[in-house]
């Protein structure tokens, strides 16, 4: 029983992290039509910046400073590079963010090295939040969920209650009209892009020390958030939320389960040997399959519900 | 004898907003219909419903007696219906000749083959040449479509629309953005190339409509107000009421 509860909570906190990342991606995509291939790279930057700032100023300063830094990098990129390719169409925009992901990766490795860095959970947050039937639920996970939740609520408030939020919503579908009304749409784009990147950076700050901080972290989480966005339905924040939680929970459960089809058959009395056809498939443990579950999910969704869980438009 | 195009109590709503509110229309073969109505009346939506871009919320669309509901655009095209677009929809990076040739390939049965060379397809090449002559673009055979003038692009668009030999042609504001002289030339072009076909044209230029159409259909707020000869429509009180202002004078004068 406790396994399910703890795993569920862990899964939800991982899912919230995924949502922090995929929401930024979805906002940028809905707003500017650009798929930011380097989004996970900004996540990585957030973690690394936080690592450095923590060693100088402490974790709480890092929580504030690192996302801002990442946001500035993102905004700068939008202004000086992304904007120039806007006129060529969406494919070149995607390509330039693709190039950026390479460059960020190389620069990170250049500055911080190719192996993982020791970015740790601060002592104040290390330890159990509560103990459930003998298993601990880490305080830090709770902290992660709290940060993610408060961030997302503030964004929702920003978009729906403030003037700038309304302008952003309008520019989402009618950028020319908004510009004709006198708003500085390029500046709004820059803000949104920078904001989305800052969000990714914040995810990096709180995720980098819970999980490992290393150069390949962008690549490994990058694939999953693209899956989340497609599965949730391109351009749908609610869909991204649903997909993030689902995938987060699914993967967390799968990783912890060591059962395989073979062991399931064994309990039914059927014994399989290495000679059995497809043995390689039967003996796979769910925990081994866990990394590909999001992608399997993607393929299934594409076959049975191509516009995604809550997708409104056809891509 | 089945009608070329039949709309039976056609309705379309987007969410709670009803755009098309029950249209009944039966267009016989070979008739030319001009569709007029104020902006936002649902004329483009009507075209999109017929051509398969949207699915009707209820009601039927019948092409030569066959139901079109829910079919994909290419299926509908293969059944004999073709359309042009309000915003020019051609293949910008292909030449004029290539544009037209693309329009005929399926109708000549070439499908997805990659085992024949385009240069060897005599019937396709001849037909493309023919079409070029018809839309008077034969001097610009190898010019990339993106480099044509606006009027030439619209002519090319018509060419692609009729290329496949469809029997029912939908033209969405074909003369949009053209000058007076270009418009009258274009109308004669349309008349020439759509001989024998059933034609539905959405137009705002009343002169065009009254000069080209056998019948006029008036669509206002998603409903069909009138479907009659141009003169009858002009005199129709309901239509006059719906069209307040200068358009009334337009209609009474038979154009600008």
């Amino acid at each position, binding site marked *: 029983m406790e396994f399910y509860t703890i795993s569920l909570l862990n899964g939800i906190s991982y899912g919230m992290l995924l949502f922090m990342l995929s929401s930024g991606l979805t906002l940028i995509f809905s707003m500017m039509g650009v798929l930011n291939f380097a989004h996970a790279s900004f996540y990585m930057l957030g973690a690394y910046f936080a690592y450095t700032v923590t060693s100088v100023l402490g974790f709480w300063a890092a929580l504030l400073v690192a996302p801002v830094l990442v946001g500035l990098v993102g905004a700068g990129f939008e202004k000086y590079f992304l904007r120039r390719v806007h006129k060529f169409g969406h494919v070149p925009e995607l390509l330039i963010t693709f190039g950026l992901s390479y*460059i960020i990766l190389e620069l990170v490795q250049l500055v911080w090295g190719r192996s993982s860095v020791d970015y740790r959970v601060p002592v104040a947050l290390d330890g159990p939040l509560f103990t459930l039937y003998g298993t601990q639920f880490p305080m830090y996970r709770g902290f992660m969920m709290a940060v993610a939740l408060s961030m997302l609520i503030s964004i929702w408030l920003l978009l729906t209650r403030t003037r700038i939020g309304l302008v952003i919503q309008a520019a989402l579908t009618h950028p020319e009209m908004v510009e004709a009304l006198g708003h500085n749409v390029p500046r709004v784009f820059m803000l949104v892009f920078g904001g989305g990147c800052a969000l990714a950076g914040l995810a990096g700050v709180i995720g980098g020390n819970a999980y490992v901080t290393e150069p390949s972290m962008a690549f490994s989480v990058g694939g999953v958030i693209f899956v989340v966005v497609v599965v949730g339905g391109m351009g749908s924040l609610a869909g991204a939320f649903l997909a993030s939680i689902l995938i987060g929970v699914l993967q967390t459960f799968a990783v912890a389960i060591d059962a395989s089809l073979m062991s399931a058959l064994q309990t039914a009395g059927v014994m399989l040997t290495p000679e059995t056809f497809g043995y390689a498939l039967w003996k796979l443990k769910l925990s081994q399959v866990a990394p590909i579950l999001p992608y399997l999910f993607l393929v299934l969704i594409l*076959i049975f519900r191509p516009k995604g869980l809550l997708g409104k438009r056809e891509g | 004898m089945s009608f070329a195009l039949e709309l039976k109590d056609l309705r379309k709503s987007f969410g709670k907003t009803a755009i098309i509110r029950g249209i009944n229309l039966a267009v016989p073969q070979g008739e030319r219909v001009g569709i007029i109505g104020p902006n936002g009346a649902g004329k483009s939506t009507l075209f999109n419903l017929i051509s398969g871009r949207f699915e009707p919320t209820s009601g039927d669309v019948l092409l030569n007696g066959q139901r079109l509901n829910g079919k994909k655009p290419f299926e509908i095209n293969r059944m004999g219906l073709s359309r042009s677009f309000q915003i020019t929809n051609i293949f910008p990076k*292909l030449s004029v000749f290539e544009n037209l040739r693309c329009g005929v390939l399926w109708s000549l049965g070439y499908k997805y083959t990659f085992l024949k060379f385009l240069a060897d397809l005599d019937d396709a090449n001849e037909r493309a040449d023919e079409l070029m002559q018809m839309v008077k673009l034969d001097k610009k055979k190898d010019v990339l479509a993106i480099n044509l003038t606006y009027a030439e692009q619209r002519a090319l668009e018509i060419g692609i629309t009729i290329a496949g030999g469809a029997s029912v042609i939908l033209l969405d504001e074909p003369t949009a953005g053209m000058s007076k002289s270009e418009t009258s030339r274009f109308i004669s072009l349309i008349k020439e190339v759509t001989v024998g076909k059933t034609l539905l044209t959405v137009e705002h230029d009343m002169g065009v409509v009254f000069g080209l159409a056998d019948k006029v259909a008036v669509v206002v707020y998603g409903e069909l107000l009138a479907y009659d000869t141009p003169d009858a429509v002009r005199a129709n009180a309901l239509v006059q009421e719906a069209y307040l202002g200068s358009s009334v004078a337009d209609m009474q004068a038979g154009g600008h």
Partner: protein
Amino acid sequence: MSSKIYEFKPFNVGRVVIWTLFALVLLVAPLVFTSSLSQTMLSQMGIAIIVCLSYNILLGQGGMLSFGHAVYSGMGSFLAIHTLNQVSGGWPLPVSLVPIAGGLSSMLVAILLGWVTTKKAATPFAMITLGIGELVWAMSLMFPEFFGGEGGVSGNRVAGAKTFGITYGPQIELYYLIAVYTFVCTGLMFAFTRTPLGRMLNAVRDNPERVEFVGYDTQKVRYFAFIIAAFFAGVSGGLAALNFEIVTSEVVSGYRSGAYLLFTFLGGATFFFGPILGGILMVLAFVLLSEFTKAWLLYLGLVFLFMVMYAPGGVASLLMMNLRVAKFGHLRELWVSYLALGLTALVVLLGAAAMIEMLYHLQLNAALGPELSFLGGTLNSKGLNSWFGSAFIMLTGLGLFELCRRQFAREWGQIQESIEKEIKRMETL
């Protein structure tokens, strides 16, 4: 710079000449570059040319941005090497046909996965290919029986019947096999662009909505093109399996897919021969540039970035634009500007490279002390002089480059205008 699209339309005589030249180059290259490194590189270039051309069926001709093409070249490699091992075990298949087996197996994978992949277009398509690429790569780690686990799968290309005494043992023999495949595959892929499916693929790229209204199912067009591209990718993979005699799961990695994208784009996706340049550049970069400097990936990323911004048609488009200028007789007016641009760019590069190399040196070779040799001189990566000097050179170079660039842009613009006037004049004749 003007953003018009140009078409490569040589006369028929010209076409025969070009293909003959191509065949000659393939034939003669290893006799001119005789070192074993050259022969290895030439072999790899042939393989790269085929896979980049196959990638461009998707990217340049179909407008389909795929982040997972390595799945198809990689599966071709794996199935080819398994086939090769069967040949060693007694199957009567000549080694020279093993790459075809690779191609056919990739085609099968594409038939299976392609329908789902091509359900969407543009950006969603790109993400789906990414997802499926990750899926296959992750699966390659789960099934060591097929994918060989950490050590991969090895084979021996000296196997089976030896026709005319050719064993494919020596590199030069394998090179000529690769050369034949390269010539034939290039020819076939070129022919494809002149078929109905090839042309409709272009139409789908330009205007998918219109395509539906001339009677074609755009998804089917993309699906079939996807399968054909996968076939050639598989052939390339099969040749790679023969060349390296070992296949590891790296061949289906996202990293490799990214390389295909990068170099095909760099070579030029808007012209047929662009990916040929791309394939050559890919091998040069991986084999030579990586030896030259540890910062090669960074340079590559930067070059790619600037290409996307200023020359999205790649090297091929730059060549063609200048050929057009030459055809109209204006090229000599530009040579001074080009020289100035080149020199200032070199200065910028020197300064930037010095700083990058010092950074890399600090990071990777710190144990060797702070000094490193750079183009014949020494730099002190911890010395302020070196840093200031490099920064100064780079910034001065940047300033001068910008000045030259503005002048060049002005001249280029004027030339383009006069060319366009000339073209209009010729059209009315």
